[in-house]
């Protein structure tokens, strides 16, 4: 193995000489501790190397070993239920070998080498196969049927393929083309910085339901879509990411904890095996891959972690699955870029971030999408990406937020003002947007009812009216409003409190199916429309506000998915109540003023 020699060490950046022949983004091993590094700059025979491990105690004169390979991930059975660090080293295995703390220079293969998987071929000997073709299956977990694909760039006629229990490194199939013979294993490798090929990009048209009312009803994301949720600390970014990882209607979840808290990853590790997937009843962990590079782990590996995560996600997409990637938080990734860029003494762009920040961010999100994959049989896969952004002070003019907003199609704006009122999810309904609403309207309406999209528009209009009225109220007080306008405020408040607010820690409220969302929303709007009608027909505003049935509306969220019919029953009750009130009103012969007094009397009594 060829090697160079270190001339400079500055934090995670090492410069070595005698590196002629190495290429950009080649992986190297630094010093005899064999720390993993990646070449990020070349000048003459000098190479700048970002090191993925702590560099204390390293100095000039020590060797740098070249591997002549870029940074790879291993793809094959064993990914699901694993927790990896930023460069795909399995943290649970590391713990067994080195204890509670992560030390340096650990070399462990990403996929367990000793575990046997039962491989079942789906093609026979003699078949012609090419890149991306499915040649067999492994039941990896109860939820995931791992399809074994012919690796990119390989094709030929199958000479031999066998069923049985194999290690990921065992040969399960041999191919031969005109020139050479290929031995296929269940595992192959892929460089993380190169997007995996597909046949064709498709436009997003299916909804990725998340069980979160404000998201699915007002700001939905499509399968294969991109979304971001910027917000200051304490606004609930991580809770939203966890909620999506738990309840999103995807077959595979890749959760990237990039530069965030260690305890959050522990939370996922402890909670996901306990939680049941609402569709299959199996533990959620059985469809999840975790990438953990916590804030105190080396900064350069944070930069790699998002690429490691998305490459694994692409691999599952290529099997024809719908995959969702959660990246929490992309700001830490950008900061890692900034730190390395600073040490390379590059000319900074905005806020010290490198000038290529926006290009890196957009090329990352562009790896999402719904595609027709390579290979036979024909299949579609989707890769959706949701990135959290943590702008300093919640300031949306932050370069990372701006670079992200330029590429993503869904924006969930998290506001601390809502969080202070404990309105969670603290997604602002006024500032957020989704550009997928029209694309997926057909799909959503098919799953719920014809008028779902229409209904959500109507509800949004009510919320916008409320915001306008609030400004007036702030100036002249609520008494100055007409009863109609006050009813708008009440209707919007009911939407906010009874529909938008959702408690992630309540066993039932944490997830609402699209059907439940539709029914709840339609009751809220039904109530508002009935009330407006009643008001027109003379019923007093105060009487409407005091209706007991509002209690039932407020408690719809706690109804189990199996008891949704009771929600519709509320409508009948509402109709009856309003009819009674309207009837009472028309029979009422008392003069206007006297009646007002009576209502006031009611108001005082409790």
């Amino acid at each position, binding site marked *: 193995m060829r090697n160079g020699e270190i*001339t*400079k*060490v*500055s*934090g995670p950046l090492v*410069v070595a000489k005698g590196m002629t022949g190495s290429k950009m983004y080649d992986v190297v091993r630094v010093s005899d501790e064999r720390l993993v590094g990646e070449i990020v700059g070349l000048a003459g025979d000098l190479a700048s190397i970002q090191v993925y491990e702590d*560099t*204390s*105690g*390293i*100095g*000039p*004169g020590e060797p740098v070993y070249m591997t002549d390979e870029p940074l790879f991930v291993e793809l094959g059975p064993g990914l699901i239920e694993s*927790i990896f660090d930023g460069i795909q080293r399995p*943290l649970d295995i*590391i*713990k067994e070998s080195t204890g*509670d*703390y*992560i030390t340096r220079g650990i070399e462990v293969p990403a996929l367990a080498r000793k575990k046997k998987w039962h491989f079942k071929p789906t093609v026979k000997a003699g078949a012609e196969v090419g890149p991306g073709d499915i040649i067999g299956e492994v039941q990896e977990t109860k939820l995931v049927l791992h399809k074994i694909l012919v690796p990119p760039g390989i094709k030929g006629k199958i000479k031999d393929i066998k069923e049985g229990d194999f290690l990921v490194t065992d040969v399960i199939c041999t191919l031969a083309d005109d020139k050479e013979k290929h031995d296929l294993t269940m595992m192959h490798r892929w460089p993380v910085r190169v997007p995996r090929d597909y046949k064709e990009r498709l436009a997003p048209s299916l909804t990725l339901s998340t069980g979160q009312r404000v998201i699915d009803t007002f700001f939905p994301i499509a399968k294969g879509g991109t979304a971001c949720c910027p917000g*200051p*600390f*304490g606004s609930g970014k991580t809770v939203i990411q966890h909620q999506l990882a738990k309840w999103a209607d995807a077959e595979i979840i890749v959760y990237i904890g990039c*530069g965030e808290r*260690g*305890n959050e*990853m*522990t939370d996922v*590790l*402890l909670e996901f095996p306990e939680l049941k997937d609402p569709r299959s009843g199996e533990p959620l962990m059985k469809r999840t891959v975790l990438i953990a590079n*916590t*804030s*105190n782990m080396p*900064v350069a590996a944070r930069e790699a972690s998002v690429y490691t995560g998305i490459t694994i996600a692409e691999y599952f997409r290529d099997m024809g699955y719908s995959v969702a990637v959660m990246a929490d938080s992309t700001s830490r990734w950008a*900061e890692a870029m900034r*730190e390395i860029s*600073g040490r390379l003494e590059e000319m900074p762009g905005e*806020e*010290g971030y490198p000038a290529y920040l926006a290009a890196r961010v957009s090329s990352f999100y562009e790896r999402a999408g719904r595609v027709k994959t390579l290979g036979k049989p024909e299949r579609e896969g989707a890769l959706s990406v949701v990135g959290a952004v943590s702008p*300093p*002070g*919640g*300031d949306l003019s932050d370069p990372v937020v701006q670079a992200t907003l330029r590429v993503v199609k869904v924006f969930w704006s998290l506001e601390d003002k809502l*969080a*202070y*009122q*404990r309105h969670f999810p603290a997604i602002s309904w006024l500032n957020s947007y989704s550009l997928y609403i029209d694309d997926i309207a057909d799909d959503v309406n098919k799953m719920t009812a014809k008028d779902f999209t229409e209904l959500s528009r109507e509800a949004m209009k009510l919320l916008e009216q409320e915001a306008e009225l609030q400004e007036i*109220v*702030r100036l002249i*007080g*609520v*008494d100055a409003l007409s009863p109609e306008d006050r009813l708008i405020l009440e209707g919007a408040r009911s939407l906010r*409190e009874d529909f938008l607010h959702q408690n992630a*820690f309540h066993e039932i409220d944490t997830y609402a199916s699209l059907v439940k969302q539709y029914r709840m929303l339609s009751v809220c709007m039904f109530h508002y429309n009935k009330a407006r009608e009643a008001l027109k027909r003379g019923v007093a505003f105060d009487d409407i506000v005091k209706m007991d049935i509002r*209690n039932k509306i*407020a*408690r719809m969220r*706690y109804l189990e998915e199996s008891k949704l019919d009771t929600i519709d029953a509320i409508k009948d009750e509402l109709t009856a109540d309003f009819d009674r009130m309207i009837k009472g009103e028309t029979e009422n012969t008392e003069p206007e003023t006297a009646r007002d007094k009576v209502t006031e009397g009611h*108001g005082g009594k*409790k």
Partner: protein
Amino acid sequence: MIKEYSSISNVAGPLLLVEGVSGAKYEELVEIYTGTGDKKRGRVLEVDKDRALVQIFEGSTGIDVQNCRVRFLGKTLNIGVSDDMLGRVFDGLGRPKDNGPAIIPEAMLDVNGAPINPTARDYPNEFIQTGISSVDGINTLVRGQKLPIFSGSGLPHNRVAAQIVRQAKVLGKEEEFAVVFGAMGITFEEANFFIQDFTKSGALERVVLFLNLADDPAIERISTPRVAFTVAEYLAFTKGLHILVVLSDMTNYAEALREISAARKEIPGRRGYPGYLYTDLASIYERSGRIKGKKGSITLIPILSMPEDDKTHPIPDLTGYITEGQIILSRGLYRKKVSPPVDVQQSLSRLKDKGIGKGKTREDHADLFNQLIACYARGKEAAELAVILGEAALSDMDKIYLKFSQEYEERYISQGEYEDRTIEQTLDLGWELLRMVPRGEMKRVRDAYLKKYYDARPARKASITG
């Protein structure tokens, strides 16, 4: 092999450039002998070919280019640890400061520590009763959490921290907390306040103090929290103690870091702080927590003063992104004589959800605090309206909420400095206050709890007077 050089070529601020060095390592520990025979310590920040850039902990006073000698010790900054350190006072680098005997180390540990493997962590979920309602009831602290106090000059953050240290206990368990206190750039008076308080409560023999006071070398502060955590880790994970680490004041720490960054002519991030401030703070804060199979734990309470009470200033901002919540003290409340002036709306404990509820505090806790905050928020909105329009312009419901929020501040948030409320008292007080608001407004509470706690007045008297 230890090498000595007298080839200093450049001194700038706390930094020293030594030339012609061979074999220097990144982060290596260095001793500097001045012409007058003083010994200073430093560490290598960067090595470039034969040049080593050294950061001097004690500052560069007395260093010259001609007579100084620099020794490279071939190891990184280590500290000898032992459980005899309890009850002792050290300087910011871990050298005894109380004229007591030297510590006989049971182990030598690298002060930089190593990251805890996320799979080895155990989730913090044991409720710590601090006896302060606004913490226990709303922003519950759990064992292994990192919960900073965001304060401003003139606010009683030290008193709040001292009260937490004094009263903190885990219910049903007898183990007491041992305290590791790291003082960075605070005044003698502030440090003395803590020492007096520890003495008064008899806790001093369970405290390890690291003092880097305002007149001590600023650069030494960079190491103080790391030294403190190294001792805390040893006591917690080797000796099985439950440790409460109090660091005050992180703002001074970050300023020392900025000083070095400026001397190195690095490209500054926001407000001149280095771009790696987040990573650097994380490497300190993240050392707290629990580890599976280990008896001890480290709970961290860093105190930081926000310049101009600005929460978006880089230090509180980045801290908030790393810690699991924050307790924010409010000047507005303090002026209203509400003490401790905890801003319950902006404060947050991220780990409370796993630390409260049945078997930990009480089944109704989660619903109750959600409802209390929601009501308080509405009351505060009403108060804002009342300022503009006058109280008379408020609707009946808003008036109720306004009254509620006032009572809430006076009776729930406000409490005596030596008043130790049990969690039961805190929760019952919450219900007592909620009964001011009509039942139909209790949208955040489950029916069963409303029946049990809102409707049925408990036999015992829940009200507490200071």
